[in-house]
């Protein structure tokens, strides 16, 4: 499959692009920042519709990871903001995907929109989003926009939701406290995110719009991953057991 990865220079995107290529996909990476490691890469700004449309030439599926971060955001309400390029960039990408006849998009959302608070112990993908703050509102709006596009156009979108991202590949990014404090249930290892992108781009979906929790697996999980396991065949491989097993 020929896959466009947005945000391919980032902490998550770089590993997703790398691992999708290992799965024998042809990967094109785009980012607003320079990309070093990909043979097919472009520096584009998702604010620019024409650049987005150009970047989708010959592409079959999209892993949409790009989102403004504190590094790239110019201000809370400027062009590179959650409701600016975050939502608008998603609009450009979906519109261009429809124009190009692309049939599968995976959109990266966040578990924060259904709340990492302790209002309930186990929350499914069907939980009502209750966003607060521009990041959570932006992701909620972008999810809803995805839903609209799949209703109107011949396009299937898998939304994946997770929270903190750790990696066992690099020291210091275990995302755990030094005293062997267990990693939060909202976490997932980067390579398992890449696995989820591969599956969500290639596996049949029961409907044109599906939301999946993507987390590591451990006892006492608050955000069940059964749906991703059942429908996508997702099986987390990096559960950081050494971080929570005595």
């Amino acid at each position, binding site marked *: 499959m020929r896959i466009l990865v947005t945000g391919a220079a980032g902490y998550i995107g770089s590993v997703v692009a790398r691992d999708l290529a290992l799965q024998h996909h042809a990967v094109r990476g785009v980012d607003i920042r320079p990309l070093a490691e990909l043979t097919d890469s472009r520096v584009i700004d998702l*604010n*620019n*519709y*024409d650049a987005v449309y150009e970047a989708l030439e010959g592409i079959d599926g999209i892993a949409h990871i790009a989102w403004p971060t504190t590094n790239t955001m110019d201000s*809370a*309400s400027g062009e590179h*903001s959650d*409701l*600016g390029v975050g*939502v*608008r960039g998603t*609009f*450009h990408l*979906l*519109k261009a995907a*429809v124009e190009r006849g692309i049939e599968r998009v995976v959109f990266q959302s966040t578990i924060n929109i259904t709340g990492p608070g302790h209002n309930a112990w186990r929350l499914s993908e069907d939980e009502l989003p*209750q*966003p*607060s703050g*521009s990041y*959570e*509102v932006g992701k*909620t*709006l972008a999810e*809803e*926009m995805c839903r*609209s*596009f799949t*209703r*109107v*156009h011949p396009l299937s979108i898998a939304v994946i939701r997770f929270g903190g991202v750790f990696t066992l590949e690099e020291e210091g990014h275990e995302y755990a406290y030094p005293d062997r404090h267990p990693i939060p249930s909202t976490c997932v290892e980067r390579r398992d995110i890449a696995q989820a992108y591969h599956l969500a781009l290639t596996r049949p979906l029961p409907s044109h719009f599906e939301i999946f929790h993507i987390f590591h697996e451990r006892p006492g999980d608050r955000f069940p991953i059964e749906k991703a396991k059942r429908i996508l065949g997702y099986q987390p491989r990096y559960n950081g057991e050494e971080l929570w097993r005595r």
Partner: protein
Amino acid sequence: MKVAITGAGGVLGQALLPRLAAVHEVSPTDIIGTNEPANVLIPEDMSRLCAGNEMVIRLAQACGRVELSDAENETAVLDTRLTGTYNLLEAAAEAGVRQVIQISDVCVYSGYPKEIVVSEDFVPLPDTSAVQQSIYLSELIARAFSRSNPGLPLTLRLGTLVESAKLPTDAVFDPSWLDIDDAVDAILRALDIERYDPISNWGLYNLTADQPRHRFSLLKIKSGVLGFQPQRDFAAWISSEAS
């Protein structure tokens, strides 16, 4: 009551201003052309706009401009509704504004067949144009703020604004029509109510002309706390509805 308006220079704003100014103390703002320019995309402008006002009426919307490309116009449409609504509601919550009246549009039901009568209880089915997406998603921003600030946003989904007095006799009837005077009346009425319908923390109402064979249910706006009854109908045009 002290009331501020964004987008006061638009068609609805111009119809609203004189009648509003007759009973309230009004700060009309727009991005250009008013005494107090205010840009909904600039948070500081929204903070200044909200300070000292009890109510804010949000009319601002980007209009297509011929000198801009399609993509630039879409950007303006999305930003004005999304970032603009977020900035305003955030500033309003901070400043203690009692209510923000958000003007929305019944176009959020565009995905339903014309034979179906829709109410506020129907899930919106907007198309994927920048206009309809920005309208639909800006409502969700209002809903998000209603959780942290119950009753702050009141959303009026208006029909297509027309002036019945100037309407050509051969115009083809559209069940989304709403006389602009009824839109003004409804906004004035919304300023007067002390509370919103208790079904949620978010006041959400459809408003079009009240017609036989209506397409948009007016039950909630007529029988809820707003108790609003539009007065102008389009009886002379109804038989011309396109099939």
